[in-house]
């Protein structure tokens, strides 16, 4: 077993893991932070996307030990401590960017990574960036609309189909 230390959503976190423990297992099972979802466990769906040192990664395809000492950001750290949703989350709610909500943690974390590098993306930019995020409810149209709205752009011309 290896003793790990990392910062998760700005707070110190630690725990004991095996070599094979995945980052997503560490978050969900050791830390009890079940906001990060496992949809496929085969690196395809993006439900497990978190940020490690500011970069979006699939936490089902990274070993926990590789995140030792890192700054990790998950969906639990997106809203303010009093529960007020952040801009991206609020836009998902306003524009019906979620149905069952299973893919949403990964969608929000991918959107946050996109808007950090590209604050005013085009619709095509958003669709390309979400290549690795699958929504089984197929609500892509409103997800894209929500992200466009979160970037402060006018989405009135983007019809809900």
């Amino acid at each position, binding site marked *: 077993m*290896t003793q790990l230390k990392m910062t998760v959503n700005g707070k110190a976190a630690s725990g004991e893991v*095996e*070599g*094979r423990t*995945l980052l997503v297992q560490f978050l969900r099972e050791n830390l009890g932070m079940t906001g990060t979802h496992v949809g496929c*466990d*085969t*690196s395809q769906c*993006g439900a497990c*996307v978190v940020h490690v040192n500011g*970069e*979006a*990664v*699939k936490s089902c*395809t*990274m*070993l926990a*030990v*590789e995140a030792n000492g890192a700054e990790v950001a998950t969906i639990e750290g997106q809203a303010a401590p009093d529960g007020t949703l952040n801009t991206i989350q609020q836009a998902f709610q306003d524009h019906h960017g979620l149905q069952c909500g299973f893919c949403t943690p990964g969608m929000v974390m*991918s959107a946050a*990574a*996109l808007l950090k590098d590209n604050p005013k993306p085009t619709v095509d930019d958003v669709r390309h*960036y979400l*290549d*690795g*995020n699958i929504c089984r409810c197929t609500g892509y149209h409103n997800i894209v609309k929500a992200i466009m709205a979160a970037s402060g752009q006018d989405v009135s011309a983007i019809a809900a189909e």
Partner: protein
Amino acid sequence: MYNFDVEMPTSIADAVKALGREEAQPMSGGQTLIPTLKARLAAPSVLVSLHSIPEMKGVCKNDAGDICIGGATTHATVAAEAVDYPALASLAARIGDPAVRNRGTIGGSVANNDPSACYPAGVLGSGATIVTNNREIAADDYFLGMFETALEEGEIVTEVKFPIPEVAHYEKHLQPASRFPLVAVFVAKFADGVRVAITGASENGVFRWTEAENALSGNFSASALDGLSLSGDKMISDLHGSGKYRAHLCGVMAKRAVAAAS
């Protein structure tokens, strides 16, 4: 996934030493290896992570004018920093999705030599050199067949050196479910000739289409490829496309690559 020890060396020398342990295997981005371990298709007792080795990361230019990319450099870094070789940066920018590009590395991709991977086409099509911890291997001698390379047990790809062509282009016909190419063609025109490398098509992995190279070396235009074709006999046939379809795509993608490059 069976359990294993993880070593995190910080130098190439320490990584090579760690790989001397019984049933040790290197891991770079893990974007191929972790799914493989989950499927129990590999069961190393020691995983040697190459992710914390500064001398294996980054993009630079050497005195000969080649672009040198450290073996543990991620696809995202190549996409952002290989500005002197736009066709290569564009190849890296189209691998998988953003999260895969933030972890997956050039060393892992060329070591794995998946018959549908992007980098093998860029490396062979550029006539690049694969640098390992103990030698340099020309791309023409490196890719030996599907998932097979000239690497020896315990040998790691520390760098890949690319000569920069006059013009080049990577044309990828996406297989949208896997986001790998169904067929992709890398074309590069150098002062002394043209190289054409194809991935996703052959049962033997990446290969050079020499007939097309000869035609293009005399006349670098898409029409130079008129009438040339490949046989579908030794091509991958699966539910996504027959060998014959892939053979046809090779010609179409090669023409598009030349048109985009010229």
